[in-house]
């Protein structure tokens, strides 16, 4: 016997969550873009997507975030820290790869100095994930040892029912349990068959690739130039990645007052590492692409024990020149001994 949430009761759940003080955020489509947005009702949700174009990361590490408001006065400078709002949030309809992305980034934002912007939001959020029953050619979670129902990062996992009436609900964390408590009356205790999971073929041998990447001899391999030749150096793969987390800090305002902001930045950009002297440690696009791959599949693991990739495939899916992690790791797998 498991708990079942029927499609028809979803709106009731939303109301319950809202009255319990949660904002409900789910995949939705507006202005020709699918992303996670606050929704008023189940009808606003776009749950049939393989994956929204934008990631859930936007709501934990937004593309631009005010840090400090400052005002320059004649004798002193007044500052005021701008922390994120306190409201509790339910993320409904997250895919396992996006949820895993949060989990992957936790240690980065937590090591040594704890990033309060990230963790405040993490603590106030409950992730309700829906296991995937369909995939597209770009999906590659299984290649990075995750999968269509991987619980990493999720507080509640929903398994779609075979008959399409709703979802089987599995709580994974205390936070998930607490959320479930608020909607118990809307759930049914029932035995129902869940739909079969999406078949996501394994595209590359990540272990083999990691071994190849770990070999210093390959760092200066011609491979990197070959594989990244067509890279145009935009930041779309990093900005749409659920785990990429690089940022810039900028002051913006007029001559007397303004706001210091934290903005997304990308290791793909030529300016990213440019010193003021003009020296640029990573001065070619191939070095920058290598950095991205190395960081995700070598450096990050060395520091935090996981790869910084949750297999969503957005990098390839949205690449203007059809590059991406999949191709690179496939090629590595093919060439590695």
């Amino acid at each position, binding site marked *: 016997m498991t708990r079942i949430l029927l499609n028809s009761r979803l709106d009731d759940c939303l109301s319950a969550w809202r009255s319990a003080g949660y904002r409900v955020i789910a995949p939705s489509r507006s202005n020709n873009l699918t992303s996670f947005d606050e929704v008023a009702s189940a009808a606003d949700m776009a749950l049939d997507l393989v994956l929204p174009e934008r990631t859930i990361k936007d709501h934990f590490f937004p593309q631009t975030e005010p840090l400090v408001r400052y005002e320059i006065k004649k004798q*002193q*400078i007044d500052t005021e820290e701008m922390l994120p709002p306190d409201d509790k949030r339910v993320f409904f309809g997250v895919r396992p790869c996006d949820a895993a992305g949060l989990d992957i980034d936790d240690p980065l934002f937590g090591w040594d100095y704890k990033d309060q912007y990230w963790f405040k939001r993490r603590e106030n959020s409950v992730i309700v994930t829906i296991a995937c029953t369909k995939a597209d050619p770009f999906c590659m979670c299984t290649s990075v040892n995750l999968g269509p129902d991987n619980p990493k990062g999720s507080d509640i996992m929903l398994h779609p029912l075979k008959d399409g009436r709703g979802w089987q609900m599995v709580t994974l964390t205390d936070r998930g349990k607490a959320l479930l408590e608020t909607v118990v009356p809307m759930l049914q205790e029932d035995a129902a068959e869940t739909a079969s999971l999406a078949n996501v073929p394994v595209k590359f041998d990540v272990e083999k690739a990691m071994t190849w990447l770990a070999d210093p001899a390959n*760092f200066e391999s011609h491979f990197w130039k070959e594989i990244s030749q067509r890279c145009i150096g935009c930041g779309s793969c990093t900005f749409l990645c659920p785990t990429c987390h690089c*940022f810039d800090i900028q*002051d913006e305002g007029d001559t007397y007052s303004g706001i210091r902001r934290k903005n997304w930045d990308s290791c793909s950009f030529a300016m990213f590492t*440019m010193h*003021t*002297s003009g*020296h640029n440690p990573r001065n070619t696009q191939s070095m920058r692409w290598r*950095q991205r791959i190395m960081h995700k599949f070598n450096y990050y693991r060395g520091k935090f024990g996981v790869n910084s990739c949750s297999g969503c495939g957005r990098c390839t899916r949205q690449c203007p020149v059809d590059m991406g992690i999949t191709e690179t790791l496939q090629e590595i797998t093919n060439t590695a001994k």
Partner: protein
Amino acid sequence: MRVVSKREEAPGVRTLKLEFLNQEHHEFFRNHYQTGMFGLYGIFGEGESTFCVASPETRKDYIECTFRQSGRVTSTLAAVDAGDIVTFRGPYGNRFPIEEFEGKNLLFIAGGIALPPTRSVIWSCLDRRDRYRDVTIVYGARTVADLVYKNELDEWKQRDDVNLVLTVDPGGETPDWQDHVGFVPSVLEKVAPSPDNTIAVLCGPPIMIKFTLNALEKLGFSADNVYTTLENRMKCGIGKCGRCNVGSVYICKEGPVFTASEVQAMPQQDL
């Protein structure tokens, strides 16, 4: 922090002496600052810029920083006067393990605007001069005008317990220049002390570091006894923003001080 004074070191290079406005921050600094660490110096409205604390850990009443005017922040910092307010975040990063240097000969090598981090170590050691043996300082710049801390160079020159070797790049000398003419690595090969029981501290632009490391190796220095600092572009200073990484190393947290052997273990192309 309030600017106490500023000094023109060389064309476009300035030193600011800063004092704490906030007792709590000063206390934190006193408790944490050790030579080699860096900070983020900022002006609201322009941003922050990273450079080392150029004053030694033996003098914690104030912070000195030296920088070249080039970007948006440093241009603004260059224009501050005594009494103006600037921000400081730090101290961040690791340190030169100077207690391990005790009882050893010290060889300091610096190029151009990279004397400031070296200077912090130099004074930290000179202020406890009795703990160390011979001290040699090799400092080079492109031209005579580009040498920074000219008054301190004079002071070191006067001291009997410091061997100061100055050099300028060929073409950078003035008619009355008495010291060496030549690039640091080649001058070093001529003047370096024996590698025995000697620690080398090396700071400079990437290209100089590369050639000087070769020279030191030739002279017989073990890579474990050569220390350097890496100064990459930084924004957060606390291991998050991702731009200072060389390989898996966050310069801002695990650096900026490394031994040459640690540097050699990093992916060389990314330096």
